């Protein structure tokens, strides 16, 4: 810092200094890097299997990614607040079955979707209340609700199963139709993604989610309603898991008591691979969505290349560790660059 003499107050626009540009660049780079990796994987696969990126191929890829993108968007919000929601898989499963049962008995598709979302909201509220009121880490709380919801699901569903034949034709068709290669479901996910990103960037309560993930104690001192914001994040996450359940039903037309089990791990991986830091306060939902796309592509690419699907999990794991390592290194680099800037301020 330099002591300056008194001058008239500076006028906008303020030139962005190089430190800012550097930091911005790094974070854009993070998302750009995933994007490039994604394109590279797709291009290589296309070389090995020219049928891969046919219209149907692209559509399948997008369809497969849609549900993960939705749930990852919700999860990103929670992770930004330095929490986590492990119950999303269970919530997805039970809301898919609820929507299916309702449709089976002749319900209207729109009402079915609303029902699934509301169920998700309910479980989200439950998680949010437990996490924000109890002094128990989110990891433990939501591990509990994961099993509770799965348990309720199993008791309720038993060995029953819902298949496409039980559902209205329009609903199942909607699940796979779209504008040429772009499915409707993907457009829904995109709309949710874009509006969530806009909300996080441009609304006070959205920024407060970052603030409280970045430094919970400071957030409290700044008068941010910490509990209400955490509740908001969980409710939103639950709602998207519910919505994803309904879309899952439309897409696969097949739900049983095991639907969505183990899904939470894929979701959390997608979010972390996408650059949403597990300790809260940074990352974007676009990153999370890119992470979801990347994981989905890896899952579709390996079979297309004739690689056994047993490799999929291992590769997901490697991506996850790589992402964390990259984050760590980038963080250190940025920190030292900022330190140097500090000193130069003189």
């Amino acid at each position, binding site marked *: *810092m330099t002591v300056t003499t008194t001058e008239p107050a500076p006028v906008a626009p303020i030139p962005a200094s190089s430190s800012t540009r550097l930091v911005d660049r790094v974070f854009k780079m993070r998302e750009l890097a995933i994007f490039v990796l994604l394109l590279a994987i797709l291009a290589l696969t296309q070389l090995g299997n020219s049928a891969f990126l046919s219209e149907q191929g692209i559509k399948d890829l997008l369809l497969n990614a849609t549900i993960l993108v939705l749930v990852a968007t919700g999860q990103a919000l929670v992770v930004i607040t330095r929490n986590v929601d492990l119950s999303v898989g269970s919530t997805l499963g039970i809301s898919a079955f609820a929507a299916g049962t309702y449709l089976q008995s002749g319900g209207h598709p729109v009402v079915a979707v609303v029902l699934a979302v509301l169920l998700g909201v309910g479980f989200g509220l439950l998680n949010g209340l437990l996490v924000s009121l109890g002094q128990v880490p989110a990891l433990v709380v939501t591990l509990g609700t994961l099993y509770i919801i799965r348990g309720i699901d199993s008791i309720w569903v038993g060995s029953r199963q819902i298949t496409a034949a039980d559902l209205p034709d329009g609903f199942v068709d909607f699940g796979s139709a779209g504008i040429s290669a772009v499915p409707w479901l993907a457009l829904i996910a995109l709309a949710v993604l874009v509006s969530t990103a806009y909300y996080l960037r441009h609304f006070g309560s959205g920024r407060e989610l970052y603030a409280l993930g970045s430094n919970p104690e400071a957030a409290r001192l700044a008068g941010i309603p910490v509990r209400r914001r955490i509740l908001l994040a969980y409710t939103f996450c639950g709602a998207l898991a519910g919505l994803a359940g309904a879309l899952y039903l439309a897409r696969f037309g097949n739900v049983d008591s095991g639907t969505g089990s183990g899904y939470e791990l894929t979701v959390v991986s997608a979010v972390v691979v996408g650059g949403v830091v597990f300790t809260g306060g940074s990352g974007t939902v676009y990153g999370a969505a890119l992470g979801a796309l990347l994981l989905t592509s890896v899952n579709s690419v390996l079979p297309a290349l004739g690689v056994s699907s047993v490799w999929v999990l291992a590769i997901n794991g490697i991506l996850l560790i790589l992402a964390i390592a990259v984050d760590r290194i980038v963080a250190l680099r940025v920190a030292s660059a900022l330190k140097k800037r500090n000193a130069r*301020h003189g």
Partner: protein
Amino acid sequence: MTHRSAKDPAPVLALRGISKSFGAVRALRDVSLDLFPGEVHALAGENGAGKSTLIKTLAGVHRPDSGQVLLDGEPVTFHGPADARDAGIAVIYQEPTLFPDLSIAENIFMGRQPRRALGRIDHRATRTATAALMHRLGVELDPDRPARGLSIADQQIVEIAKALSFDARVLIMDEPTAALTGSEVARLFGVVRALREQGAAVLFISHRLEEIFRICERVTTLRDGALIAGEPLAGMTEEDLVRRMVGRDLDELYPKQHVEAGEVALSVRRLTREGVFTDVSFDVRCGEIVGMAGLVGAGRTEVARTVFGVDRWDAGEVEVAGRALVNGAPSAAMAAGLALVPEDRRAQGLVMGMSIERNIGLTGLRATRRAGLMDRGAERSRSLDWAVRLQVKYARIADAVSTLSGGNQQKVVLAKWLATGPAVLIVDEPTRGIDVGTKAEVHRLLSALAADGVAVLMISSDLPEILGMADRVLVMHEGRLTAEIPRSDATEETVMAAATGRAAA
């Protein structure tokens, strides 16, 4: 300075008979205080006297166990910091409370950003307002850079900017100047005076007594949580104030013993860390206390960190007792007899959730180990010994460090490093946030260490401390060593001239 008109205005904010306990610790007992518009009010007291607790009560962070807070004469209950803020009270807490991932602008306006249509944040207005605040404080900090990695002083500046941005009726500042040097303090005081003219009430805490006398009209003194006096400062001397704080007369604040300097213990040659500091060379001899002065951001802390091996150097060399140190290896530096008491105690000095005893014991793990196992008994007696020598105020030595007052945490960091019995001791702001009584004690300790042949490098933003304690003063300016002044020639003028780059020496 202290002429309030005959018809005294009513206090904006007042405390009546406030008590607050944490378990068995009675942090405040029956304390009352009046804050008047257009007046700067000092809150004085030793470490752990209850100053920060009092402030947190005013700010709605703590609920008093008994007593009342009056706003414009009406009793109010603050249910949280938001209530106090809405009542027009802005607070700078002792420990910076920033969001490391967010930009400076967002940090300042979090929760109350300027809005556009539909309740969206006006990012541009936020940034412009931040730049204007920075200008008012006379500092160049980029509004868009994240708060992560800011020096303690810059964090303090951001906190001050945040508090100013409220245009509050009551401004409360808990040791805002602890990390600042003269020119930043002058700037801050300029702003505070302007606020006072506009009729704001200000509550100010500092362990630098001369600052209290410079800016305040009235002082309230606490001792062990109890109110000692609330009175005008006019006519009081520093000695009077110290007596109220400590309850007795104080010995010499700078008990510097003359020691004949011995062999060179630490030798730094042409040390450079690119973009941070350049071509820094100096020696510290056994028995010597070398002061390092300079403005905030001059690179003093960075030199210390690099010498100790926390950061790597790009060129140059460091020798301890004639043996070269390995670049970037703190453990090697420690083995060579070097100790560094860091500037940022919360982030680098302490494990907040751990007990006082274990924190002090951490550096001695090697010494107090028996057959590869920790000897808890030895650790405890060693920790107790140092805690007592530094007059750490605690309920039990097994309490978590996080429950200590700010100054007492600082003492724990000091104890932890002094306990290693180093040959070369680098202390970065050793008495920041430490009360006058203990300050004298720390100075006596440093002086005694030097007399025992320890080489001491003391970085300090407190100029009187440098002048009072150092055998030689090194001055840094913008990453370069600009002057080396022997004790006999060191005055406020010569040091400040070199620190601001006005004179080449």
